């Protein structure tokens, strides 16, 4: 009984909040008042959006607990990589302690961690992309069927059209490259984006009318 009531409540909340947020996007673009309700719709939807921030912050807290739980379990069961888990938990505790003791995330010690440890590590890690692109391209360039043959052909033309040597090989290469990027590639991207937009709207509508309830335990 309680479970059923919970489902009904969750569905009602989702539909009402969803309708308010949807209405606010139309109200924001509509010139003038809509039955004198524009102000109310805007205020209520802003309130709902501010609640999202609170929920997200609480979710972050639960995520924090999840990280500790997963890595503590790894250490206890001495799974492979337990040493990394120890390092992670120490780093986590140290960053938290620095944040608390130095006066929050905007303090100098906290900023030091972000500016001189975290950001350089992230940049270094993303620099690996160059190597990964090369190895992925090596695999992708193996011609297995007609599809991969077209893939390789177009990639080689775009690659040669992009670099200065291309124009020396054949003066038309940059022109063909531009045509590939502006006509078939752009058409393909627009087709994909159109499909994605329709898929997104359909997902939203299903949730909005309550026929799809991923937030409850009902299938």
């Amino acid at each position, binding site marked *: 009984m309680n479970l059923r009531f919970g489902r009904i409540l969750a569905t009602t909340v989702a539909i009402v909040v969803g309708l308010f947020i949807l209405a606010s996007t*139309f109200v924001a*673009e*509509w*010139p003038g008042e809509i039955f004198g309700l524009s102000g109310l719709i805007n205020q209520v939807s802003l309130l709902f959006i501010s609640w*999202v921030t609170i*929920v*997200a912050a609480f*979710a*972050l807290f*639960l*995520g924090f607990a*999840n*990280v500790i*739980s*997963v890595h503590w*379990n790894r250490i206890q069961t001495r*799974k*492979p*990589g337990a040493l*990394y888990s120890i390092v992670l938990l120490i780093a986590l505790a140290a960053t938290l302690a620095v944040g608390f003791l130095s006066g929050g995330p905007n303090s100098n010690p906290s900023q030091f961690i972000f500016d001189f440890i975290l950001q350089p*590590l*992230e940049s270094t*890690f*993303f620099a*690996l*992309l160059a190597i*990964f*692109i090369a*190895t*992925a*391209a090596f*695999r*992708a360039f193996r011609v297995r069927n007609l599809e991969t043959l077209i*893939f390789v052909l177009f990639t080689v033309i775009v690659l040669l059209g992009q670099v200065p040597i291309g124009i020396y090989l054949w003066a038309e290469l940059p022109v063909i490259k531009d045509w590939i990027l502006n006509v078939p590639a752009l058409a*393909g*991207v627009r087709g*994909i*984006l*159109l*499909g*994605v937009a*329709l*898929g*997104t*709207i*359909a*997902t*939203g*509508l*299903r*949730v909005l*009318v309550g*026929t*799809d309830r*991923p*937030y*409850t*335990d*009902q*299938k």
Partner: protein
Amino acid sequence: MASSVLLAFLFLLLFLGLLLFFSARVNRGQKPSLRRIQAFEAIKGFTGRAIEAGRALHLSLGTGSMADITTADSLAGLYTLDYLADQSATTGIPPIVSMADPTVMLMAQNTVRSAYGSDKVKAAEAYRDIRWIAPQPAAYAAGVMNLLSLDEVETNIMIGKFGDEYLLMGETAARRGTSHVGGASDPNTLPFIYATAQETLLGEEIYAGGAYLQKRPVHIASLLAQDTMRWIIGIVILGGVAATSLGIING
């Protein structure tokens, strides 16, 4: 301005009408035959493969959230999790699920809990394999790469919102010889998926999980509504091109 708002509103109403119309039809038993998508066929066999190999199945839900424009992408991954969780409730082998946003983690936990029903002990065990890695894309990718290496993953599914970091994870899976299905909606990520995954879900295909994996009537109806809207948009575009070319309307 007013006309474009009105047009968008009418578009939504039409879409909603089609969704409800096709839902009623599908519920009456008029189900269409869906074209075969190889990636979903592969996903259906992944749990079995992982059990046979005695290794793990990993599902990445990406870097999307449940509270911004990436919600639909995150939901697409969660529908796949729904299917895998149902299978794991039968087999007792839960998938390892990773994500970059804690709101998605809560949804993933709810999905797993609902699959296990009243069996709270097994649900608690499955919870341990739902892992929030880190909010930054680079840190998330590093965590998943580590997970793919250390947890001896046999089959890997990545469906959700991904950026450039996809390549780091996808390439790691490819190098390790892991069976790998990848899917994303961002056209900039699709070449990375194409280059690394064995089976791909390109663009809107990621939203079709509920229809293909679980045969949910409302999801099947949703695909029919999307197809109808696509035809309408296509006809309007062609009509607009013809009318502009013939000078009937001014471009």
